[in-house]
């Protein structure tokens, strides 16, 4: 089933502590968003999950088996890294061929089909690909790998809007046809929000939230209306963020909506709405835990 369990994971780089006692379970067949600001520890965590680097302490297991130098556990994962470590002299089609060698379930026909959709010339050498096409090339490898766990680190880096949209659509197709665990680390939270089922927020090496998107969004609300009335409503409450548009004001509150609040808002003529994931993320990584 490919359940990933992380226990007390700590990673030190010389004097810097990148990850601090992380304990986490990643359930199978769900789409996770790994969110965090620059340098939060996202890539370090992903590199540890795939045995690219070694932890200072703690354990990572897939279905109870430690990932460290474990061929069986690692063969279940395809990790699309942000960095490019493919031999530059190889052609795209050669990498497809070798990926098939190492991932026997790799679907070459689907990879070629995706290359067509993304206008990626498979005769091109890796070194001649632009930043966007590097991302496309690596994303195709991951999507066609048929691995049980797909990990994407900044998958849409350098992609234009059309290709980003195409990537999200293909991701959903791959997931719906053959459910698998997908972990996506990205800064484009607004774009990915609709794709995600679960969200893990990492901040300064610590997990500060690990909820379903629904739970997370339900843990806060936005109240909007005439600025004066919103201010009146907010007396005794803490605002996580606010937006002003003329006399109109919208405030994000990090609490569930209570009946009492609903009545007060109704009396003041204010309306409630769900906050956006990105807004919550900005607030959470600005110092407050949800």
């Amino acid at each position, binding site marked *: 089933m490919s359940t990933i369990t992380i226990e007390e994971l700590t990673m030190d780089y010389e004097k810097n502590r990148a990850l601090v006692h992380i304990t986490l379970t990643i359930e199978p067949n769900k789409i996770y968003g790994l969110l965090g600001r620059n340098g939060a520890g996202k890539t370090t965590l992903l590199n540890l999950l795939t045995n690219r680097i070694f932890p200072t302490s703690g354990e990572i297991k897939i279905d109870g088996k430690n990932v460290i130098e474990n061929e069986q556990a690692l063969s279940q994962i395809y990790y699309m890294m942000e960095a490019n470590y493919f*031999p530059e002299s190889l052609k795209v089609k050669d990498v497809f061929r070798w990926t098939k060698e190492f991932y026997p379930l790799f679907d070459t026909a689907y990879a070629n089909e995706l290359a067509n959709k993304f206008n990626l010339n498979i005769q091109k050498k890796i070194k001649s690909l632009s930043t966007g096409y590097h991302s496309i090339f690596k994303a195709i490898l991951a999507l066609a790998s048929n691995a049980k766990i797909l990990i994407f680190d900044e998958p849409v880096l350098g992609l234009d809007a059309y290709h980003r949209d195409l990537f999200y659509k293909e991701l959903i197709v791959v997931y719906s046809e053959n459910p698998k665990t997908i972990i996506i680390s990205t800064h484009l939270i607004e774009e990915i929000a609709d794709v995600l089922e679960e969200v893990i927020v990492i901040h300064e090496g610590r997990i500060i939230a690990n909820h379903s998107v629904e739970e997370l969004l339900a843990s806060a609300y936005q109240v909007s209306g005439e600025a004066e009335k919103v201010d009146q409503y907010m007396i005794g409450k803490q605002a996580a963020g606010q937006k002003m548009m003329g006399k109109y004001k919208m405030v994000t509150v990090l609490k569930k909506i209570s009946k009492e609040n609903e009545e007060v808002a109704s009396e003041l003529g204010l309306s409630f709405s769900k906050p956006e994931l990105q807004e919550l993320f900005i607030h959470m990584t600005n110092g407050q835990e949800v």
Partner: protein
Amino acid sequence: MSNALKVTKYLYRDLRTSITVFFSVMIAIVTLPIFIAYQFNTNEGEVNVSGLGATIAVYIFIMGLNIFKSNFKFMQMNNITRSSFYFGSLIALISLALFLAIIDALLNKYMKLFMSYQGLFEQIYPKNLFIADVFWSFSLFTMAVSLGWLITMLYYRSNKLTKIVISIAPVLLLALAGSLNNWTNGSFGENIWNLFSILLGLEQANSYMAVLSFSITALIFFALSYLLIRKSPLKN
């Protein structure tokens, strides 16, 4: 097929061009004097080529230097474990050393048909034995490639300071050896030479002594390489 053998297969593919180019150049170097000799009716005996074995040893050493970094990264992209990468590379490197040793020994044997030729083995051990030549060249090439591989891994694992130390260490050692030699009125150099003479079986013209020395050295280099790669992180 195990992942280690898949690594071997990939490395063969990766090295194919380099080996083809190398042997094309070698064949050109070897055949050109013969061609000139026959074309211009030069006395056959004047055509003299030697020491191709040393060229192959240098080539395979450089191959050892070049085979690690990009291939390790590519295998990491495919979630191949370090041990599979290590053993796959080991099979590729040792089998290539054997292949090159056989080619070298064959060249040593057949070049004599066309010109005055002495291979490296024959120059050191004045005998012309095909099997002994293959064993000797194989162990020499294996040692050369293991040294190249070890050096490149040392560089990969090292920080800037350690890289500098590794780079200047041979010069420092030579300078130290020179000083020691002067300080001991030449007896240090003499002892070192005697030691090498024993280890390479030079006095008794015993090439198998050299085979043993080269093999043990290669084994040590390969073991050290394993220690370096065992916990090697993926990095730029």
